[in-house]
């Protein structure tokens, strides 16, 4: 027979807890967990000077737990936000993601911008089919491009993404395993723009773990996409996260310590290589280090390879 379980108590109000956070030596009831969560976000924004009080924030919203939790919490904290959803054209997964995002925006009466990749002829499955890029690499290039482009066209100076502590820890571990000093020099919770047409990129959830954002989304009854992107299976980032979770289970708090201390003590020692000021992409007019930006290069590659394939099929 096992010993009778002792229900953990909330650290703040001593009511029965619903969330246990060994990394913080804490447990919280539902309402106190919301206070904890909001404080972590406020702290990230304030300490890292992510958003000025007069700025409107473009929030990248995929329809998953992190981005919907981010949009929810920024709205509750009183930030002026507009959502940006990229419909990647990945079949039923993208349809569901868009539906959940649009539903959230409607319910909260928040403005949402949608970019439909299929409409522009570069849905992610096409980009993968007609190039040799890995799905996540092609998708990442397209996402970063549209975050910048929509921000530039609509006049936003700041873009917030739902990257959480686990994302940052996995990325940092990956960079360290390769001693990728260029990426280590650019891994920060705030990325200042390298060109006047670029927006500042901020990660207000970087202090919160994936478990915490999922618990927040569940307890706030946010209707998010539980399904994982079909292209993500076996992705390096997921494997790194699995390794991290074993370390974290053994030594709670390691993930948080690793990331926060990297930002505080190690990151400033990595100096970003001086790049020439970007020029202008010949195709789209966005800043670019070559004649074409990386997204237009990708799209051209798709178009070049797609044409003979279509002719052969026709």
């Amino acid at each position, binding site marked *: 027979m*096992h010993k009778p379980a002792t229900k953990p108590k909330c650290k703040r109000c001593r009511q029965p*807890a*619903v969330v246990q956070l060994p990394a913080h030596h804490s*447990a919280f009831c539902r309402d106190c967990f919301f206070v904890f969560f909001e404080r972590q976000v406020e702290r990230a924004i304030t300490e890292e000077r992510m958003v000025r009080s007069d700025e409107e924030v473009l929030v990248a919203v995929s329809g998953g737990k992190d981005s919907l939790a981010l949009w929810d919490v920024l709205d509750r904290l009183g930030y002026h936000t507009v959502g940006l959803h990229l419909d990647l054209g990945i079949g039923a997964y993208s349809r569901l993601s868009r539906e959940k995002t649009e539903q959230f925006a409607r319910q909260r009466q928040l403005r949402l911008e949608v970019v439909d990749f299929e409409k522009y002829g570069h849905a992610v499955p096409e980009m993968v089919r007609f190039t040799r890029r890995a799905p996540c690499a092609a998708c990442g290039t397209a996402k970063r491009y549209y975050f910048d482009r929509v921000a530039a066209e609509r006049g936003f100076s700041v873009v917030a993404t739902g990257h959480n502590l686990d994302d940052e820890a996995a990325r940092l571990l990956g960079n360290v395993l390769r001693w990728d000093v260029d990426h280590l020099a650019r891994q920060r919770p705030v990325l200042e723009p390298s060109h006047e047409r670029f927006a500042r990129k901020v990660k207000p959830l970087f202090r919160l773990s*994936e478990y915490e954002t*999922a618990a927040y989304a569940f307890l706030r009854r946010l209707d998010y996409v539980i399904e*994982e992107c079909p292209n993500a299976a076996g992705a390096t980032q997921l494997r790194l996260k699995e390794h991290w979770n074993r370390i974290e*289970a053994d030594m709670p708090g390691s993930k948080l310590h690793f990331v926060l201390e990297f930002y505080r003590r190690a990151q400033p020692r990595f100096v970003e290589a001086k790049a020439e000021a970007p020029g202008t992409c010949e195709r789209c007019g966005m800043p670019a280090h070559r004649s074409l930006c990386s997204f237009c290069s990708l799209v051209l590659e798709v178009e070049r390879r797609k044409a003979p394939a279509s002719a052969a099929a026709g």
Partner: protein
Amino acid sequence: MPRRRRLTPGASGSAVALTAQDTFLIVAQAMKVVFLPQKREVEMPGGQRVADLLRKLDLLPGTVLVIRGDELLTSEDTVADSDTIEIRNVLSGGSS
């Protein structure tokens, strides 16, 4: 004629006089565990802590939400045979 009796878990403490003619239908009520997003279902015995359930399933506590109805469970909560438990993966990723 053999007598047919129904024994349920929990009745084990009561004295039952058995004869050679008895046959038993043992009804083992089990807890239903539903995994999301995989939509896979298994049956497990209840009467155990969430921490023990996760250990048996080879899952680490910080990687899943354990949900009963609209309630989020902690490692110290106990699940029962009559429960339907949802185990929801929290890991996501791929693109940077």
